[in-house]
């Protein structure tokens, strides 16, 4: 009850503190109006200790005791300024974010820039309950902080609001700020663990070997894989280089193995997310086998091909299937 109230209050505060409606445009500069400062637990203990020392100094009329308390009190105030300065006017902009499969971990890269001639030390960035990332930013330099968030569902995962804080230099005060950068991570559907075999049948079932690629027109070389037929090793090319890896000749053409990964090919009993998972698994398998594969989905159609561009286009289509409607 109390915990939920605290959480709600905190949420309200954060929303007020952010002021802008997320996501914020880059660069996000942490101006003094959005940096907050409060004592840490150590800071409160420090203040209580100073109070006790002051009482003792008063009771025993210790002038030097007064001086000690006042010096330490001044140190506390100076610590506030230093901590505040360590964070204020840090400038942030979103960096890269590689797509991940659902169930994996999305890694959001933030570029933090320090326009000051002094180093900024021990800044901690974290998202909710995730493990904080601690970074320093050198004078007139920038540092990349990579924040990890579990990616649960396919589609676009917006970077959650992040907290950036520091207690440097004395650990007595904490300065912090919030930011909601405009950074999204594409989350592919998780490939199904158990999927029906690749749809070999149909119009495009040509060729003879499962592991084979097309055998007609030479189209290039790639690194040899254990499953490749020894017939396709590019011995001449290997012989030209010394101690180089084995290379496999690639062939394409009308007779190259082509399959269609078809949304409709799956039975009606399979629901949408499962379909997407199975399609993702098929794509990966097809890619691994060097097949030229095409994709047929209700709204998307990809011509058969093979390669990194093809698979990212395919997975992207799966990830964003009906995404707007969700």
């Amino acid at each position, binding site marked *: 009850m109390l915990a939920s109230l605290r959480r709600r209050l905190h949420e309200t505060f954060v929303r007020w503190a952010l002021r802008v409606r997320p996501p914020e445009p880059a660069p996000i500069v942490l101006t003094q109006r959005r940096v907050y400062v409060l004592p840490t637990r150590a800071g409160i203990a420090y203040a209580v200790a100073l109070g006790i020392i002051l009482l003792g100094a008063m009771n025993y009329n210790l002038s030097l005791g*007064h001086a*000690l308390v006042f010096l330490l009190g001044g140190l506390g105030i100076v610590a506030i300024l*230093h901590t505040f300065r360590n964070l204020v006017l840090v400038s942030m902009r979103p960096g890269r974010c590689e797509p991940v499969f659902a169930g994996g971990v999305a890694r959001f890269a933030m570029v933090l820039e320090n326009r000051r001639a002094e180093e900024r*030390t021990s800044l901690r960035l974290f998202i909710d309950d995730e493990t904080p990332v601690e970074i320093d930013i050198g004078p007139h330099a920038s540092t990349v902080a990579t924040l990890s968030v579990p990616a649960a569902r396919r589609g676009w995962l917006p970077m959650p609001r992040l907290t950036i804080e520091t207690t440097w230099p004395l650990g007595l005060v904490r300065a912090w700020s919030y930011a909601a950068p405009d950074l999204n991570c594409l989350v592919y559907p998780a490939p199904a663990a158990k999927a029906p075999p690749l749809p070999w049948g149909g119009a495009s079932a040509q060729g003879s070997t499962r592991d084979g690629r097309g055998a007609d027109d030479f189209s290039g070389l790639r690194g040899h894989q254990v499953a490749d037929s020894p017939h396709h090793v590019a011995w001449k090319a290997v012989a030209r280089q010394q101690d180089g890896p084995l290379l496999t000749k690639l062939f394409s053409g009308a007779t190259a193995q082509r399959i269609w990964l078809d949304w409709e090919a799956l039975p009606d009993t399979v629901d949408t997310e499962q379909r997407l998972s199975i399609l993702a698994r098929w794509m990966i398998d097809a890619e691994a086998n060097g097949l030229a594969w095409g994709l047929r989905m209700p709204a998307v159609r990809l011509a058969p091909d093979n390669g990194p561009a093809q698979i990212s286009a395919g997975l992207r289509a799966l990830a964003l299937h009906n995404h707007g409607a969700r």
Partner: protein
Amino acid sequence: MARASRPVSRRQAWWLLATALAASLPLVPQVPPWLSLATATAFIWRAALTWRQWHLPPRWLLVLLVIAGTAGVVLQYRTIFGRTPGIAMLVVFLALKLLELRAARDAVATALLCYFLVLGQFLFTQTIPTAILAGLTVLITTAALLAASDDRPPPQQQLRRAALMLAQALPFMLLLFLLFPRVQGPLWGIPQDRFSAVSGLSDTLSPGSIAQLSQSDAVAFRVRFKGEVPPQSQLYWRGPVMSSFDGRSWRVTQTSGAYAEIPYAGVGASVDYEVTLEPHGKFWLFALELPATLPPNSALTSDYQPIARQAVRNRLRYAQRAWPEAVAGVNETPRMLRDALTLPTDGNPRMRAIGAAWRTQHGDDGAAILAAAEDFFARQLLIYTLNPPLLGPDTVDEFLFDTKRGFCEHFAAAFVFALRAAGVPARVVAGYQGGEVNPVDGYLVVRQYDAHAWAEIWIAGRGWIRIDPTAISAPRRVSSNLAAAIPAGEGLPFLARADLAWLRELRHRLDAVTNGWNQWVLGYNPQRQRDLLATLGMSEPDWRSMTAVLSVLCGGVMLGLTAWILRKRLRIDPALAAWRRFTARLARRGIVWRTWEGPLAFAERAARHIPTHAERIGEIAALYARLRYGPAPQADDLAQLKTRIAAFKP
């Protein structure tokens, strides 16, 4: 918090060990030897733990050690409260805390314990060296706190940063020290052990008691005169007055009925001065004879000694006035006179006989008896010495007729005894005589070796008269000082000696510094604070106005510091500023620089838009790129960039 539970690194452990060492070393003389030994063991253990990266001792062992430490302190002092036991307990906690440095919060706890120990030192001494030592301890502790936050920088850098932060804290300290509303302590009872070992006069006087004091050059009090310093022979600082004699010791009689006001009239010129009295744990205040005013919170005993309502446990400053020529006690009560005549029933037969003879010869004529006594003392050829021989049961007789060697208490006691034997009321007055003017700051310094005892006799119609029997035999004791009066070769405290002029000069300077420290730092009390504020134009300062002024001033300092700390923010990298001017010009032509764009990529794009300026754009971008990202920018690159950008008109 995740941070508070981070384990303590080796470097942090070393820092904390250094802090603990700095905080506990100055307390070694104050705590029992076994505790110092145990603490040293704990420190060595800690060092070994850090060095060898051993496991921390188990919790049950630490609990046992805490119990053992507490038991040790209780056995030693019978309590854990009070000054010394409290500090001993803190030392125990600090030593054991070092053995359980698990997380960052333990580091903070250690630092706080060290701060308490620094305060603990001040309970014993607040001299300038102590203050310097405490400053160093605070510096190391602050560096340790810095290391607890970030342990990567090397020690010198941590110390430098700590020094910088403390320097920035200094203005706050000064303001708070001067303006924070002071409260006169104590807020609660002060344990009695605070003044267990202070030397000074006591309320009894027996042969040898003042001679003992003469070995101490501790300061009893300091005096600043408003006008001229009176001649040395007039500087009789009245202390406890002793009327009761038991054959060996003189004692202060518990005088009932003290005066709230001065019971005698002023005669002649008055002397104004201010006394800064060192704490001595007794009630009495010293005043030049005879006091004309009473310090606040004090009264005058029936034998004219000002006494405070509370024991003097802190350095006390009071303004005073004296009437050197005043006459007191012309109408003395019969009871007081009776007390001043009482002698034990037996003992000292020889002096008694002589006294009785004076009585029969002169009758009630006190003045004649006094003259006879002075004459008698002069003819005895008594020797004033720091090392009088031990005396048997008849102290007066043995001193006057056998050994003939004594210190001021022998003289005063014998003289008072002689007059009482002759029926003249007399009593012993203890106090200080003389003092030495420090030429550096003009203060008269009265030290323990200036302790003295003299006699006061009552003569009908003339009241109480001060007679100094020491002066009869050793007039230079009164007219100059102790060193001039005693025979050469007797052991004198260093400062009382007449030779070693340069050392005395040095000592005078040091003493002036100490006195300034005492007056302005240690003696900065509510009274002095009010005086200071009054000179600054705040008449009647109360805590509200003081808090207001304090807040305004502290706010000002804080603003200044903030401006200083954030000053760099206003200064943009000049190359970047020039580049921004350049991009602003291009933006007017519709070519907007995107912040993520590198300068060269941007230049390429801009050149495509305005091919006429392509070359110049390329040059500027190359210059800028070299300035900002290049391995070795040329010295005049920046100037070049500026002029080229200034000349660039797309």
